């Protein structure tokens, strides 16, 4: 949030809810304004000759016609620099922890504190020499902001020229002038921070097609419906389907370097829960709290609805800023439906014609424009960075045909649809395999095989050994994506079998079908379900995911082979190693792949014994 140096002055004409009209000659569309004696903050959303309409980010109680209005002519902007990490901001980047110190437990309006504290000194190490020609987005120097993250101080994207001055290494406050740049004869001072308008995408170099998976440690997400770094995902679900837990798990465990979490119109207690988790949980490599790599934006449901509308833009601008430093950022917005409702509320008060369910006609295009700001890019400074956007959707009545869900579905690459029936059956995470999709699975396949060549070949070998080198099946294993494809195929077949069985009775199923149904159950209980509260199961390493998946799919194919040779399904269901396979997700720690290998050996042996037993009975007859 930027403080306002008044350029234009005017007076209030009319107040109705969060909308204020004022006579303000020379006003700039989209610029910030301060209204009334308290100086409450707003943004100009309509200009009509000399009359400006503001959407106010704070309550307008007791604002009167005749009250003063000032505007800086500056667009609604955020401050970008050291001091963002570990902070909690509201929708327009007001620092909630600092406000807590100032005003107590409640948010009094008109509190204009700078987003980045002005007192704190940062150890700045310059990275460029005087005389260098510099361009926007280049790294001016670095600050070890937290143990988890080096802050790279950037030249503002819209500035270039000759560096005529830079300070020596030392401690500086964010607003100190640390360098000066001459462009066309004008000298521009550079600080440790700069401002950027939230509704304007920050520029970058080339955009890559997303091809690196965002590993979340959640099996159903990583294996079945993967998300790529720089991609976009929507998570729709009715209340009680576990949206919050899925988003918190991704925020806790995903392999992004920076997490920006926007609580947009959601519960206050959830933000506290997340904050406490981030303080308590540590990064496995450095043992530092996860909060040191996180920025929280909390505009809870009881805070002003207009600031909620702005909050997602504040979130994505902060995300782009870390992307521009060469980091991989995960932006999580909970919930985009509340953002859409804020949009609807303002549109309604402006008396715009509604399209569907009262939403303005531009809902779809605004949502698309937001998700388009996600991406994997070459930064202006020449590094590799990405913003992955994950937005939850709260469809009224759980009806996925409503506008926000439908528009989201058409613009995102990954769709994690949460199902109430699965949640009611305590199948968590309740990701529905029928409605969910991922458009990134093919492109990230290569990355898996490259990065985990060793483990991938182990997983393949494990499967192949179970399959006993059956040539037909082994072709399925040429690519990583064979695993998720196999699991999905199995689940869909089992759903079909269930429908059949419910009509004509389970007795009508063949042994082969029964085995399919059984293994699908194993996939659900032993692989897809994941217990966020279990210390082992809460995070599943990619290696364990692959090996576990390979074991189950391998067992499935081997079982089918045996059944085809006449081994009864009932004989297979008795195998104790299958029960162990079911509980391996909680029983086998991430760093003990050898236990899975042992399980594979036992399974292999038991399957062989079952086959031999059958053969000998057969021979006796």
């Amino acid at each position, binding site marked *: 949030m930027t403080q306002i140096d008044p350029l234009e002055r005017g007076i209030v004409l009319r107040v109705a809810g969060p909308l204020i009209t004022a006579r303000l000659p020379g006003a700039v569309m989209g610029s910030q304004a301060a209204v009334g004696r308290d100086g409450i903050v707003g943004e100009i959303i309509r200009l009509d000759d000399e009359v400006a309409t503001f959407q106010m980010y704070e309550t307008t109680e007791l604002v009167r016609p005749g009250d003063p209005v000032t505007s800086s002519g500056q667009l609604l902007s955020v401050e970008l620099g050291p001091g963002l990490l570990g902070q909690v901001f509201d929708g327009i980047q007001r620092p909630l922890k600092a406000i807590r110190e100032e005003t107590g437990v409640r948010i009094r309006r008109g509190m204009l504190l700078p987003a980045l504290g002005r007192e704190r000194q940062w150890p700045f190490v310059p990275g460029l020499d005087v005389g260098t020609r510099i361009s926007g987005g280049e790294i001016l120097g670095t600050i070890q902001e937290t143990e988890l993250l080096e802050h790279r101080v950037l030249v503002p994207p819209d500035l270039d020229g000759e560096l005529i001055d830079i300070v020596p290494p030392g401690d500086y406050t964010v607003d100190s002038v640390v360098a000066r740049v001459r462009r066309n004869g004008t000298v521009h001072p550079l600080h440790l921070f700069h401002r950027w308008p939230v509704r304007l995408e920050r520029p970058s170099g080339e955009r890559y097609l997303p091809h690196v998976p965002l590993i979340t440690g959640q099996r159903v997400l990583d294996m079945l419906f993967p998300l790529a770094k720089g991609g976009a995902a929507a998570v729709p679900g009715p209340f009680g389907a576990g949206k919050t837990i899925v988003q918190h798990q991704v925020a806790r465990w995903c392999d992004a370097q920076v997490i920006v979490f926007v609580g947009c119109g959601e519960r206050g207690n959830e933000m506290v829960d997340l904050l406490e988790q981030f303080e308590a949980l540590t990064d496995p490599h450095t043992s530092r709290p996860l909060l040191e790599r996180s920025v929280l934006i909390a505009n809870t449901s009881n805070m002003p609805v207009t600031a909620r509308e702005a909050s997602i833009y504040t979130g994505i601008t902060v995300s782009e800023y870390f992307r521009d430093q060469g980091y991989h950022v995960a932006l999580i917005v909970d919930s985009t439906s509340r953002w859409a409702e804020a949009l609807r509320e303002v549109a309604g008060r402006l008396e715009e014609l509604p399209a569907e369910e009262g939403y303005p006609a531009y809902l779809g295009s605004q949502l698309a424009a937001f998700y388009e700001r996600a991406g994997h890019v070459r930064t202006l400074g020449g590094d590799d960075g990405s913003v992955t956007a994950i937005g939850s959707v709260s469809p009224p009545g759980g009806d996925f045909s409503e506008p926000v869900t439908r528009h989201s579905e058409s613009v995102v690459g990954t769709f994690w649809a949460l199902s109430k029936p699965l949640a009611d059956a*305590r199948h968590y995470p309740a990701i529905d395999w029928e409605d969910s999709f991922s458009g990134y699975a093919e492109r990230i396949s290569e990355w898996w095989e490259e990065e985990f060549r060793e483990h991938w070949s182990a997983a393949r070998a494990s499967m192949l050994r179970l399959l006993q080198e059956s040539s037909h099946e082994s072709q399925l294993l040429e690519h990583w994506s064979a695993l998720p494809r196999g699991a999905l195929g199995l689940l869909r077949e089992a759903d079909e079998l269930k429908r059949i069985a419910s009509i004509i009775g389970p007795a009508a199923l063949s042994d082969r079908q029964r085995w399919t149904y059984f293994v699908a159950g194993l996939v659900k209980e032993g692989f897809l379900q994941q217990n966020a509260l279990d210390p082992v199961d809460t995070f599943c390493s990619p290696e364990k995911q692959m090996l576990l998946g390979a074991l189950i799919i391998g067992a499935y194919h081997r079982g089918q082979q045996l059944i085809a040779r006449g081994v009864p399904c009932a004989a297979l269901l008795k195998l104790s190693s299958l029960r162990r396979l079911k509980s391996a997700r909680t029983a086998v720690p991430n760093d003990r792949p050898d236990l899975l290998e042992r399980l594979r050996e036992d399974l292999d042996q038991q399957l062989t014994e079952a086959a031999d037993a059958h053969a000998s009975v057969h021979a006796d007859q």
Partner: protein
Amino acid sequence: MSEIEWRNTLDFGGNLITVRGARGIGFDEQAEITAGDAATRLGQTLATSDTEVVVQVFEGTRGLTRESAAVRFLGRVPDMVVSEALLGRVFDGLGRPRDGGPPILGHRREPLRGVPINPVAREYPREFIQTGISSIDLLNSLVRGQKLPIFTGSGLPHQRLLSQILRQARLLEASAPFAVIFVAMGISHTDARFFHDAFRDEGVMERVSMFLNLADDPTMACLAAPRAGLTAAEHLAFEQDYHVLVILTDMTNYATALREIATARDEVPARKGYPGYLYSDLAEIYERAGRVQGRGGSITLIPVVTLPNGDITHPVPDLTGYITEGQLVLSRDLHSRGVVPPVDVLPSLSRLMKDGIGPTHTRDDHANLANQLYAAYAEGRRIRDLATVVGEADLAGVDKLYLKFADAFEERFIAQGSSEERSVLQSLELGWSLLELLPVDELSRVTEEQISTYGRRPRQEQEHDG
């Protein structure tokens, strides 16, 4: 306070008065409307400009005339005096005494709408509240500072459940003074009387404060009632360190009132005629529950939501479910089979349960036992559905056991006398004893250790029986 009285320039329409020529009036400013000897009415400004002011009148404009009515603006938003003296009293929706007693005196005025709690100043709710009701304590635990609505239907005994909670609720940890704020919205005199008498009979009325907007009271004041109640609750909880339990009944009536007023203002409707800001409006009420750092008290909120036509996807329960931390769902089916209180545990949920139970709060086996009972009951219900198609006789042996379990679970665990108070330990014991109906191999959600510690019969003995 402005001494100017505006008269003769007033236009009336529905609940609105337009005051032409009034200037310099604040948005949301409180207004007093007088008309001869009639009682003073209260209003607030909905829109203000340099030519006219629109005032919404809580009691409506019926009976007012251009000649007699006068409007005075008070220079402050709608508010009320807060103090401990609110306890033991009955008020209307705007916080004015309706028990014939004197007005509340004091210099501390707080706005009805409240001021949002800074999210970073919240304290995460963790302390288990024992209600003495098994279906809540064991499977949908309530914690101090939680907002947990009751989803009910017309004719279901939610009143009985509420009064049992009010009577039995207690903390297992050290006790602090408690208070109850009871807010009635659009309910009948009979229903309000039920609670009033219940409080009186229990002898707890001096710890209760009632805010009543009954079915025949002005609709506008219905919107103020929960806000007045919560303003009182916030003062008691965060200034006087009380643990406050707030009952809001019935939020469906509240939303209907909101819709009525929005429609009268020609606002664009969203779903089922409700205004697009219904979510924000409900959140403004529900989010006032909670705990804050450095204050001893808490606000635990139990709103009652009657599902229109039993439809859980109706906007009021739907949006409520998105804001609150779970829900207790009453079932018509259970009720018709004589199970009282008819808490259907399958769609019920307490989101804060995970942090409020376990060794430091209740017992180490609580979470697993709850999971196991839930899973077994869900399986029993599934088999009961199946049995209606294929017939009970054709069920497999273990399926019959599940069926038996589901029946016993409803009869012995869910059903509970209105004065039967079960401690959480008794509920845990009851849960374990019900699990004995099932083969031990079926108990996959509890550990071997827990079975041998808390299950009454060790595994071998049971297998021997089977």
